[in-house]
């Protein structure tokens, strides 16, 4: 029995260290800066072990029973720790609090175990032997864990499954201990069923770890996901609550079918209705076909060229009934031609000329998207416009990211456009900004196509005023070699995301 209990010490310490390494690695993956993450995780873990050891003195009787309970708890919490951390990363306000809580709980439990084990073994070994043996097994276990983790577990099993596996090991130790002491223990069957329940959960977790991670994604969305697919360029995800269809690209909301008409009417009509000569129109981005739907309301337009990066996206919105209903089958209209290419690359090669360009790119949240808002991009865009041509650019929120918004305005101006900034209220987005750029003087339209639900002369007049809290505090031109917009955008939306 002594031997068996010492093996237990070995398993416990291996498991303990593995949980600690898993927490450190997950934190490094999710938060970056491995030095900070590992130091803090190890610190919290060791400190919690101290607390556990301290608390162990208050356990006066039922040593074996407590030991088994602790073991089962370690198995449950430690075993599911990696999965919990990944699952809850999107959900909780402060991931760090959760991380250190989990590490602390495991630390305290492990800290309890070794003193308990020593007290159980006290009657069987003399003190010198006891201390030497238990700690030897404890430290050998630590060595094995530290070798297993990087060499076998992470490359072979991955973090989530490794953690479930070690949870199972803890549970097995508990079962073994129950068997060893079955003559001394009360509520045997209850203990067994507890152990089986924990083991069951862990086995399920181990087997379904893939599904777990994809489920983790779905919990980030309030409505049922009807479609999710990864293309080489982005992750496309569509949810449908019955009344409301929403499109997310890389986790960012692109539209809600309830109020997208506001967004797209405001994007397209103020500039389009004001054009004197309007035959050829270019749409950059906007593979959902909604902007094209609005453009098709102008009979004078002879051709619309839509350039989008992602063929999968334009195909979906062309062919899937649910989605093509949203854009009135605009992508199948004979006046529309779809080109799958990189907007910037395509523009530099383009020899056609257009009266109007609608620029509807995702927000400048990374450096490659930031290039599509640069002065060089707008200068290139200018070369494909006719002399009286115009552009309109979706340009993020002047409320949440006012300096980013005005940076787009300034950049367009610096590329030689006369600019007209305006903004509209789209409930699912908040206050949203656009800017019209023209090569000659702009006079707002006196007439709009029939059937619009949001834009008319009166509402557009309102869109032109900006409240003081939407005015910029700095002015800077976004260039390829400074990516000023991405830096502004990160800091402004970052602030908002933290406060949220």
């Amino acid at each position: 029995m002594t031997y068996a209990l010492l093996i237990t010490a070995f398993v416990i310490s291996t498991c303990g260290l593995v949980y600690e390494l898993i927490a450190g690695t997950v934190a490094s993956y999710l938060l970056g800066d491995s030095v900070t993450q590992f130091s803090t995780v190890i610190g919290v873990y060791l400190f919690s072990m101290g607390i556990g050891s301290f608390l162990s003195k208050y356990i006066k009787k039922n040593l074996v029973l407590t030991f088994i309970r602790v073991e089962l708890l370690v198995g449950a919490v430690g075993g599911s720790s990696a999965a919990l951390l990944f699952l809850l990363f999107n959900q909780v306000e402060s991931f760090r609090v959760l991380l250190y809580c989990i590490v602390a709980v495991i630390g305290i439990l492990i800290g309890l175990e070794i003193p308990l084990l020593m007290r159980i073994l006290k009657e069987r070994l003399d003190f010198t032997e006891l201390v030497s043996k238990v700690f030897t097994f404890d430290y050998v276990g630590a060595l094995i864990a530290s070798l297993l983790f990087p060499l076998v577990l992470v490359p072979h099993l991955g973090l989530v499954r490794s953690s479930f596996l070690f949870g199972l090991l803890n549970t097995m130790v508990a079962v073994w201990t129950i068997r060893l002491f079955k003559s001394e223990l009360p509520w045997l069957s209850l203990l067994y069923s507890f152990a089986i329940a924990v083991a069951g959960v862990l086995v399920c977790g181990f087997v379904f770890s893939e599904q777990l991670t994809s489920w983790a994604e779905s919990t980030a969305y309030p409505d049922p996901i009807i479609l999710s697919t990864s293309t080489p360029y982005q992750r496309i995800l569509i949810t449908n609550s019955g009344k409301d269809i929403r499109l997310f690209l890389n986790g960012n909301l692109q539209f809600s079918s309830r109020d997208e008409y506001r967004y797209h009417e405001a994007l397209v009509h103020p500039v389009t209705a004001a054009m004197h000569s309007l035959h050829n129109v270019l749409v950059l981005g906007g593979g959902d076909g909604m902007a094209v739907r609005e453009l098709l309301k102008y009979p004078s337009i002879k051709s619309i060229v839509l350039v989008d990066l992602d063929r999968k996206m334009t195909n979906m919105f062309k062919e899937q009934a649910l989605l093509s209903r949203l854009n009135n089958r605009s992508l199948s209209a004979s006046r529309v031609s779809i080109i799958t290419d990189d907007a910037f690359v395509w523009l530099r090669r383009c020899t056609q000329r257009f009266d109007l360009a609608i620029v509807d790119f995702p927000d400048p949240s990374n450096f490659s998207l930031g290039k599509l808002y640069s002065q060089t991009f707008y200068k290139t865009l200018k070369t494909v416009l006719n002399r009286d041509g115009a552009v309109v650019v979706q340009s993020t929120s002047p409320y949440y990211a006012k300096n980013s918004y005005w940076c787009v305005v300034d950049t367009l101006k610096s590329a030689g456009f006369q600019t007209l900034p305006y903004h509209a209220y789209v409930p699912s987005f908040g206050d949203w900004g656009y800017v019209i750029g023209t090569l000659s003087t702009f006079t707002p339209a006196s007439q709009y196509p029939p059937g619009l639900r949001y834009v008319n002369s009166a509402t557009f007049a309102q869109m032109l005023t900006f409240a003081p809290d939407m005015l910029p505090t700095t002015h800077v031109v976004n260039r390829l070699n400074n990516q000023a917009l991405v830096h502004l955008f990160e800091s402004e939306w970052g602030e908002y995301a933290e406060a949220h």
Partner: protein
Amino acid sequence: MPKRIDRSTFLKGAIGCAAAVVSAEISYRWLRQPEPIPGQLRGPSVALGHRLRDGELADIPVESEPLRSTVVIVGGGIAGLSAAWWLDKQGCSDYVLLELEDEVGGNSCSGANSISKYPWGAHYVPLANSESRYVHMLFEELRIIQGHNSSGLPVYNELYLCHEPQERLFKDGAFQEGMVPRRGLQGEDKKQIARFFEIIKSFRQATGADGKPAFAIPLDLSSGDEQWIQLDNLSFSQWLQDNKFDAKPLFWYLNYCCRDDYGSTIERVSAWAGLHYFAGRRGVAANAELNSVVTWPEGNGFLVEKLKEQANGRVIASAAVTKIETVDGGAVITYFDSKTNRQHVVNSKYVIFATPRFLAPHIIAGYSAEAAHHPCYAPWMVANIIIKHIPASGTVSLCWDNVSYTSKSLGYVVANHQDITTREGEKVVTYYYPLSDEDPVAARRRLLSMSGHKWSEFIVEDLTSMHPGIDSEILSIEFCPWGHGMVSPTVGFIWGQGRSSMKKNYGNIFFANSDMSGMSNFEEAQYQGITAASNVLEQLTTT
């Protein structure tokens, strides 16, 4: 149940566990059997070079009628191509340029794969200084400079200015933005770094009694004042010591810069050269910050291609010049066509000899090895690597230039950084490693004797220390060992006797290569090429 385990049982157990782990690891390795990463060695025709050196090519008989040309340019690196550019500009179009390799470019040559073009050597040029007249001329001609703003500052084409984010440094387990160390610094380190840059600021503006800038680009336009020139007689590290600098991070940074630009360490390069790196760059632009650079996916291969276009029709590639004899009123140049294995002869009035000088004694009849004044050349290993995906590391995004504080290499430059696509596809990265740890001769031997397999292992291990797990993302590696990569500005070379006698012509042969500057970069190579061309043109008009 045994009451206690004895020592041997315990030991057996422990050994058993250890053995289990080790065998698991071995069988894991075996199961995974890492596919050897496709590696390929390319490079300057080393073998051909050696045959040339050993005089083996000289015996092949000449078969065709000799060609005739006013000027023959030997070597199509930046110096040779710039000489051609200048001759054309001044109305002398009767020249041929003979290049050993199948493509011109020399140290600025480049390659291409399905993902991107990429450099094999030189990859950027800093903003041009106001005194760098020829660089301005070329940049305006190629529309790299598109015009000037109202205060006369050049407006650069922003597609060519290095895009943001530019540089990051891996130090103490994470990346920081920028190359000057900021993570883990002591107060004293910070003070010294600030003090160093204060000194540089004043050196940038400093002039000698002759009114010339203390540090100019090209360096021959620098002040000849003793006050500045004497800095060439001590090593950069000595100067740092004399000026009470000892902060490790500062030393790391300066050593990194010297290895990056000169292929050599602060102990070997002169203080004048070390300071020139920082104080020499004064280029400004209307639309970029001080210290910005222009770069292309193919690096300076972009400039090579443009220069080659204008020399169109007069470039003969795969032509190894084996012998040059000076004769009355001209020279006879023999070259070996490595495509057809034939020798040809060109008779010319003048020769512009634009290869590194150490080759001259092997090629020019009667030119002694002493006259070559052997400068010191640094060996380099350059590799181009296709990577499926570079793992994200913390919050600092992938940059153009990515360097590790602890690595012996200079890290890697992302060739397709300048792409304007939003597609996040494979990356082509150029890995730079100057073998500056040991003396150049021993290093050159190591460079050429290590197998491609060994190099590939070395590089993957190095990259892994920055990016754990990157080995499984690597699709291919190609190598280019540069035995005589670039000239190093060792102590006393730039302003010493050796270099000034390298500038002398040998009969009708004029020399042009960046090694005549003592430091190798685009501006110096171009300046040397144009200077040689001007000397030839001057001779042509006087005779």
